[in-house]
């Protein structure tokens, strides 16, 4: 079984849109037992020192389940914000702000991927103009070089490398990578191709969720 992909499927996903009444868009996403809730406000009023004359200012607040945010959370925040900036057509709303809150509800592995996917769903729910969609897929490499897709927290602990990829929906190119551990270029490329294949499931899931929402009325 070694050197082959051990789990080629993502965990079961379920999402609920517009759960919160105040934000302009919100989404709760379960990927297995990992759960993240995201809320978007915008385009809204911007603080004068953050105003950009050619595009909207994107702010992301990442809230850990407990405790105060530290360096790790700031780092997560930046990854989420930059990904969000890539997909939003922020030039359509200059001198305004888009603020996003990502709340971790439960972490049982693949947290960053779940954060980005729930962010994308919240943006879809808000109906803001976007260039394309993004799908985040997480996988781990064990010491035999086998790839575990959408790893649980237990699998993450015993892993040689943890990799999160974000692909865009148009060309399936890499928007974001966060890969840590010890791995060769071949292994990296293998993870990338496995994750790219799996990203199609997420895009399909987005479409299903949005169709359910839009066909209601």
């Amino acid at each position, binding site marked *: 079984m070694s050197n082959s992909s051990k789990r080629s499927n993502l965990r079961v996903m379920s999402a609920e849109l517009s759960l919160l009444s105040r934000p302009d868009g919100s989404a709760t996403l379960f990927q297995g037992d990992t759960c993240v809730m995201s809320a978007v406000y915008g385009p809204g009023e911007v603080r004068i020192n953050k105003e950009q004359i050619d595009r909207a200012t994107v702010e992301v607040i990442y809230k850990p389940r407990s405790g105060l945010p*530290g*360096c*790790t959370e*700031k*780092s997560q*925040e*930046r*990854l989420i*914000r*930059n*990904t*969000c*900036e*890539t997909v939003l057509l922020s030039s359509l709303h200059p001198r305004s702000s888009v603020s996003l809150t990502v709340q971790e509800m439960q972490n049982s592995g693949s947290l960053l991927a779940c954060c980005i996917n729930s962010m994308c769903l919240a943006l879809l729910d808000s109906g803001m103009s976007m260039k394309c969609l993004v799908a985040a897929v997480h996988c781990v490499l064990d010491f035999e070089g086998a790839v575990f897709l959408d790893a649980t927290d237990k699998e993450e602990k015993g892993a040689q490398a943890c990799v999160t990829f*974000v*692909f*865009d929906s148009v*060309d399936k*190119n*890499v*928007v*974001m*990578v*966060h*890969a*840590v*551990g*010890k*791995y*060769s*270029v071949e292994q*990296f*490329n293998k993870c*990338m*191709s496995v994750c790219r294949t799996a990203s199609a499931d997420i895009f399909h899931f987005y479409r299903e969720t949005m169709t359910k929402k839009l066909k209601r009325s």
Partner: protein
Amino acid sequence: MYSSSKPAETAKISVRAARPLEYYRKFLEKDVRPDGRELGEFRPTILNIGCISTAEGSALVKLGNTTVMCGIKAEFATPKTEEPSNGYLVPNVELSPLCSPMFRPGPPGEQAQVLSHFVNEVLNQSCCVRKEDLCIKTGKLVWVLYCDILCLDYDGNAPDACILSLLAALKSTMLPAVKYNEETEKPETDSVKTEPLHILSNPVSSTFAIFDDHLLFVDPTVQEESLATGTVTIVTNDNDLCLVQKPGGSPVTADQMNTCFERAFSRSKEVLRLIDEILHSIER
């Protein structure tokens, strides 16, 4: 001659100031950057090891104008009960208002926090220093290495400079020989005898900037960073990869990633040769 060249010179300056993107595009069409570098060329790297005499290890790195100093300070500490034979490595990156007007005094800003987290991840994931090596007496006494990285001049590409200064400083670190006295439960240091720190692997970072969604070039300056539509940071660890980070920005293809990997590995060799040379020259 003089009078004819002057208007052209002013025109060049005004184009650079008013339309930096067009200015860059004109150069990049010819596969060269305004400072004369090719796309895959790093700025001249200057390394000085052992510049802080009071620290256990130190290094000063200049990557073009970007100047970063790293000092390693060793102190005694008691280990955690769940890991009784592990020492501590505490990295911290400081981007003070001294290095650029972009940074404000006060608590560390987002970029400093992100950099600190990055350095910490590289230290932990590359396993370049085994934490067991920092143990003096299991369960009683271990070394804690404070790796303070201070940016003196910020002109882009801080991650590469930080990792390079950290590696060089760690390689030059000499820890005093310590004996643990069982009766008094106190450490006894030998002031003359010192031992070098074991460095098991060599993490080297290379940062690429994406320009106009398709062009990749290495080692961006501050201006290039602000014009770039994304960055890719690759940390190699000898023959393996240790960390690949692309925090959003323009999408890249798998082929582009592979070109980056190739360049990162060749950069790794260049850097390690440089560190070895400097270390040799100090010994002599």
